[in-house]
């Protein structure tokens, strides 16, 4: 058994730095490359793509990442685990196989495919059999939006990924695996952690949480001492160096920028945190109030002491549904009295929308440069601002009303308050809103499956 297993994070979300995966496998020795592509509503975007073309529905960026790390996979045995499969892990795996063949590595890359998270085809059957799939935030039954559901995926845990690894997969592609399972699975696989080794499994989850947002634990988006964080242009993404006993250290490759310190890791630990006593995953419930951190040298933090307990008998389900339309328009007003001009434009616009008889569920104005992000907490502006951006948004069920709104921004340039500019972008776009519906389902309803192809 290896005494240290190194899992490197190469992607914190779909849209993260394209350079990161290659830098992680070339910058120093690593055993696994973990790539997280899925956010809450990503599945619905992918579902729409699959409806247009049945070969689509996965994170296409993943192919570029695989191409950039293919030599490391083939020559050095680095293994890749990614939830890039989205709503079509099979097509994703086939695309990886074709890519490998095209690059002269045909048959040399074994690809594990994890399926079973997709509940969309069974949604009516589930509801009929008494699964209410109530919204975890509002308590409403899914029935209220059933005809507008676009995707439904259970968050699945580490077990099928461990199986794929034990069957020799060098690249594992999943659908809606939890972000943290992507890091925990290789530790379970390498160290043979039992399915009821709660403290160790919890440690794997904490390791996953720390690196799942990529550089956000290694100096990116780091508030403390932000001016002094070195060489962000060359930021190093994090690596978990795990031990069989469940302790681990977070590091990054030598010669890279950014910073790994107790405070930078703590900022990531509290990110998107709920009840810290109960970080619930399909594998284990981790207790974040047990985590101990200490510096283990420059850009190295030791993590230990983590406790866990058995998971619940439910899985969380990520459901996406159509929820109306929205559009946001902006104009920029300049000195002098920029804020007053933007405020007058806001009043004029509201009166015009009113006279048109347009009705929306929500109308929102923000004054960017004065109060957009902190609202009344920002207090009154300090002096006469050089410019203020009027940011005006509407939301509603009626697409035509939202569309009509988008035509009311441009006229203000000539028929509203003066010193206005910044309309180069043209008319605002109407966007269909795909909203998120979190629910719970009995674990026994979800059966995962693993296939390995080459």
């Amino acid at each position, binding site marked *: 058994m290896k005494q240290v297993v190194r899992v490197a994070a190469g992607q914190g979300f779909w849209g993260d730095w394209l350079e990161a995966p290659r830098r992680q496998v070339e910058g120093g020795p690593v055993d696994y490359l973990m790539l997280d592509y899925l956010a809450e509503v990503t599945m619905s975007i992918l579902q729409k793509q699959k409806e247009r073309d049945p070969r689509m529905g996965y994170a296409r960026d993943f192919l570029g990442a695989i191409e950039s790390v293919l030599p490391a996979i083939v020559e050095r045995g680095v293994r890749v685990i990614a939830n890039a499969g989205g709503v079509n892990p099979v097509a994703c795996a086939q695309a990886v196989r074709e890519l490998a063949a095209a690059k002269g590595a045909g048959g040399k890359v074994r690809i594990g495919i994890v399926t079973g998270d997709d509940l969309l085809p069974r949604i009516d059957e589930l509801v009929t059999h008494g699964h209410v799939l109530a919204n975890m935030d509002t308590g409403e039954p899914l029935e209220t939006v059933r005809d507008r559901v676009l995707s439904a995926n259970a968050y699945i845990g580490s077990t099928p990924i461990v199986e794929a690894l034990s069957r020799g997969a060098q690249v594992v592609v999943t659908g809606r695996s939890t972000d943290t399972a992507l890091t925990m699975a290789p530790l379970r696989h390498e160290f043979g952690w039992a399915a009821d080794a709660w403290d160790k499994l919890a440690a794997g989850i904490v390791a996953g949480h720390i690196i799942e947002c990529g550089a956000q634990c290694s100096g990116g*988006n780091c508030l403390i001492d932000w001016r002094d964080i070195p060489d962000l242009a060359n930021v190093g993404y994090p690596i978990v160096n795990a031990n069989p006993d469940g302790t681990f250290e977070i590091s990054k490759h030598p010669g890279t920028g950014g910073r790994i310190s107790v405070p930078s890791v*703590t900022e990531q630990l*509290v990110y998107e*945190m*709920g009840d810290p006593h109960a970080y619930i995953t399909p594998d284990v419930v981790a207790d974040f109030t047990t985590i101990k951190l200490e510096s283990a040298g420059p850009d190295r933090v030791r993590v230990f002491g983590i406790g866990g307990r058995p998971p619940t008998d439910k899985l969380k389900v990520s459901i996406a549904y159509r929820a109306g339309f929205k559009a946001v328009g902006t104009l920029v007003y300049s000195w002098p009295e920029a804020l007053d001009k933007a405020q007058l434009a806001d009043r004029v616009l509201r009166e015009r929308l009113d006279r048109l008889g347009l009705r929306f569920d929500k109308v929102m104005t923000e004054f960017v440069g004065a109060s957009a992000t902190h609202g009344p907490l920002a207090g009154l502006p300090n002096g006469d601002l050089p410019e203020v951006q009027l940011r005006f948004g509407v939301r509603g069920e009626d697409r035509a009303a939202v569309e009509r709104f988008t035509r009311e921004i441009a006229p203000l340039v000539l028929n509203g308050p003066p010193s206005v500019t910044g309309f180069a972008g043209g008319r605002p776009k109407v966007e269909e809103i795909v909203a*998120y519906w979190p629910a719970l389902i009995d674990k026994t309803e979800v059966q995962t499956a693993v296939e390995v192809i080459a």
Partner: protein
Amino acid sequence: MKVRLADIAHARSGDKGDTANVGVIALRREWYDLIARELTERRVADHFRGVITGAVQRYELPNLAALNFLLHGALDGGGTLSLKTDAQGKVFSTALLRMVLDVPDAEARSLALPVAS
């Protein structure tokens, strides 16, 4: 003595649906007890009055010298529904750090707290 929270803590925030979370971390471990005493649910709810529509929940993480706040009804529906610039609650962290605390002079001195200018 007036002490700015921004001078004694750092923070990060994120979202879960229509709820923003703010993790507040003491810059020095010995300042955690003061921060935990001052930043009650009620105090934070007052701070965000007119900014959020729901309740505030607080959790303590003494192991990390941190508090975690859940601010419900913070994001205009959250995620893709929200019309806000900060639809994902990324800068509720610094909004909370705008708070100014009243600390007894003797305590501020003994803890070597930076004084608000």
